[in-house]
């Protein structure tokens, strides 16, 4: 069950491992969803995790910022070792941003306030700096005009872009994206993927769980295929799509392309 294709660094990758997962194990009750996963992501790399639902990809992603407590293994982010016993989540989470399928914007705050909240509360930045950072982050996702809009006044695509801006404003080292286009109407998917593509081009380290295969193929440096709680294949997208080495991946690609 070792990875068949060797990982190849993408154009902007520096070769320095930013996120390193070794032997990650996690069970929900009697069900073991992660059976010892090893993975390394270099700075500037864009990695997509694919696989069927229930393969453990979302759980793995959520374990990277401690939303899921792992039962075994070691998570290392930017040189800081995080094992299940002693997790300094506050330090870890300032290095790891996360964007969710359901946006999870704070509905009682405006777009600008959503972005500013953690800057003010966690990073203790002063008012002017917070405001400037929030304006810059919103401008970056093309929503500079929506600073004072409440989430309920925004479309799904706009809400998700605010959520991305909210994470980016914290200046994370790596951004985790958990199926961030799955809750969107089809016509709104492109604007969100456009933002992600721009981030990738600027050298942001990204780990995405996605069902957007075309996007994964075009934008990602590396594809990670999970099956039954393990990574069973990984490598450059073109290689995996064109020459899947395992029957599981071949079947998965067939299923996805038949849709």
């Amino acid at each position, binding site marked *: 069950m070792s990875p068949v294709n060797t990982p190849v660094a993408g154009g902007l990758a520096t070769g320095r491992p930013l996120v390193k997962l070794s032997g990650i194990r996690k069970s929900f009750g009697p069900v073991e969803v992660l059976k010892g996963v090893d993975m390394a992501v270099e700075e500037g790399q864009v990695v997509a995790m694919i696989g069927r639902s229930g393969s453990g990809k979302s759980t793995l992603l959520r374990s990277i*910022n*401690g*939303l899921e407590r792992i039962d075994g293994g070691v998570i290392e982010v930017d040189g800081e070792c995080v094992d299940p016993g002693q997790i300094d*989540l*506050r330090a870890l*989470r*300032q290095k*790891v*941003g*996360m964007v*969710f399928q*359901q946006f*999870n*914007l*704070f*509905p*009682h705050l405006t777009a600008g306030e959503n972005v500013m*909240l*953690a800057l003010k*509360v*966690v990073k203790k930045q002063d008012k002017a700096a917070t405001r400037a950072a929030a304006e810059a982050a919103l401008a970056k996702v093309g929503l500079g005009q929506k600073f004072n809009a409440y989430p309920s006044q925004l479309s799904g695509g706009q809400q998700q872009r605010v*959520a991305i801006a*909210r*994470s980016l404003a*914290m200046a994370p080292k790596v951004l985790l994206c958990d199926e961030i286009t799955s809750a969107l109407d089809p016509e709104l998917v492109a604007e969100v993927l456009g933002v992600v593509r721009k981030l990738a081009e600027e050298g942001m380290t990204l780990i995405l769980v996605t069902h957007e295969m075309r996007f994964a193929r075009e934008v990602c440096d590396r594809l990670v295929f999970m099956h039954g709680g393990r990574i069973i294949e990984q490598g450059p997208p073109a290689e995996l799509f064109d020459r899947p080495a395992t029957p599981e991946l071949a079947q998965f690609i067939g299923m996805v392309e038949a849709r």
Partner: protein
Amino acid sequence: MLEFTLWDILSNLLLAARWTVLLSLIAFVSGGVAGLLLLLARVSPVPPLRVAARLFIEVFQGTPLLMQLFIVFFALPLIGIETTAWTAAAVGLTLFTAAYLAEIWRGCVEAVPKGQWEASASLAMNFGEQMRHVILPQALRIAVPPTVGFSVQVVKGTAVTSIIGFVEVTKAGTMITNATFQPFLVYGLVGLIYFALCYPLSLSAKALERKLNVAR
């Protein structure tokens, strides 16, 4: 034999009703503060705090208010604290109110979607910051109607304190009945006073609920 006019009776009841109102206010305000602390303990990430808060709530919800007042009234002197009917009533009702409000508010906190906890946690906020900036502001909106609704229970709960000798409107009613031998009239008036206090509260709870549903 002395004659009592209706005004004699009513004016004395209304004077006693001031104590009903004051006791209700004290119980509601201090019970609200204690209830908030209890709520924070009840939903906190620290297991011993959660268990302690839950135990407190279960005990106060699972025993009659009258027993709670007896225990406060008779137990405080045992541990060396001089107590009057007034302090025992205030302490007893405060604890009772705190337990119920904490449980009502816990429901409101749990009605806030889990994604709000996850998003704020992912932004590196700790429990206190999450509660203060993300969860409580949203829970508060949902909490207003049931909280106002529960204040009616507090007002009615003050009647029980008459048993430990606190002179509020019910106790005053009993005393006046003993003098006038007109129980139906006196208790009828007592009932009307309670209704006059509680009905506006119920009405505003309903109005707030409607307003909230429209706002959604």
